[in-house]
């Protein structure tokens, strides 16, 4: 339990830091960057895919061993950096129109995937094959993987 509080504390510090330093020269240098956009989503995809696989393998242990939070943390750091880069910008400068269009497509796709995944996970749970505790990790990892994976695909190929 202490580890969860430490991780939560780190998360709060990250967001506070992002808020405080959002108008700093460092933040201003983090311009709307194609690399930042891609790296953020690659990190999210890797962390959430790994989390999904480990949840299937480890079951409840993924929560008790705190791997769940540890896998989400790099993704959250990447998003905080993205938030820093975009906070002081107008809507048009946050993401270019292709990125916005791709994000909408990715959101629609991941919404459909999550609905389907929820059904599958519930069916497996109903059959008594795993405990309800890992519902949330499975769903969040599915949502993140589907969103970031499809966003990267649409960005490159759309």
């Amino acid at each position, binding site marked *: 339990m202490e580890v969860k509080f430490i991780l939560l504390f780190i998360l709060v510090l990250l967001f506070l830091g992002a808020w405080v330093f959002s108008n700093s020269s460092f933040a201003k240098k983090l311009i709307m960057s*194609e690399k930042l956009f891609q790296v953020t989503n690659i990190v999210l995809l890797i962390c959430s895919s790994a989390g999904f696989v480990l949840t299937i393998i480890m079951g409840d242990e993924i929560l008790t061993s705190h791997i769940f939070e540890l896998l989400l943390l790099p993704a959250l750091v990447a998003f905080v950096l993205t938030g820093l880069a975009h906070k002081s910008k107008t809507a048009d400068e946050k993401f*270019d*129109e*292709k990125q916005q269009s791709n994000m909408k497509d990715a959101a629609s796709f991941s919404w459909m995937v999550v609905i389907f995944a929820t059904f599958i996970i519930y069916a497996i749970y109903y059959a008594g094959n795993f405990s309800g505790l890992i519902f949330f990790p499975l769903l969040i990892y599915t949502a993140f993987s589907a969103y970031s994976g499809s966003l990267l695909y649409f960005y490159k*190929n759309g």
Partner: protein
Amino acid sequence: MKLANDLRNFREKRGGISQEALANAVGVSRQTIISIEKGRFIPSAFLALKIAKFFDTSVEDIFYLIDGQNNKIRWRVKWK
């Protein structure tokens, strides 16, 4: 009807401006310029105008409509 463009030709005619330089000039990512040139992404009117302004030409010189046989669709402006 589909939208096509000569963006790549314009870049090459103007001293070989890179995709990145054009992207920075009009405020989008390089991937957006790549997708426009490949015909995978249709820019907004705003972006098309910014690109035309960058090349100091009209939007219709860069972007145009094509029919099913890839022929340019031309029309005459009847009233002004």
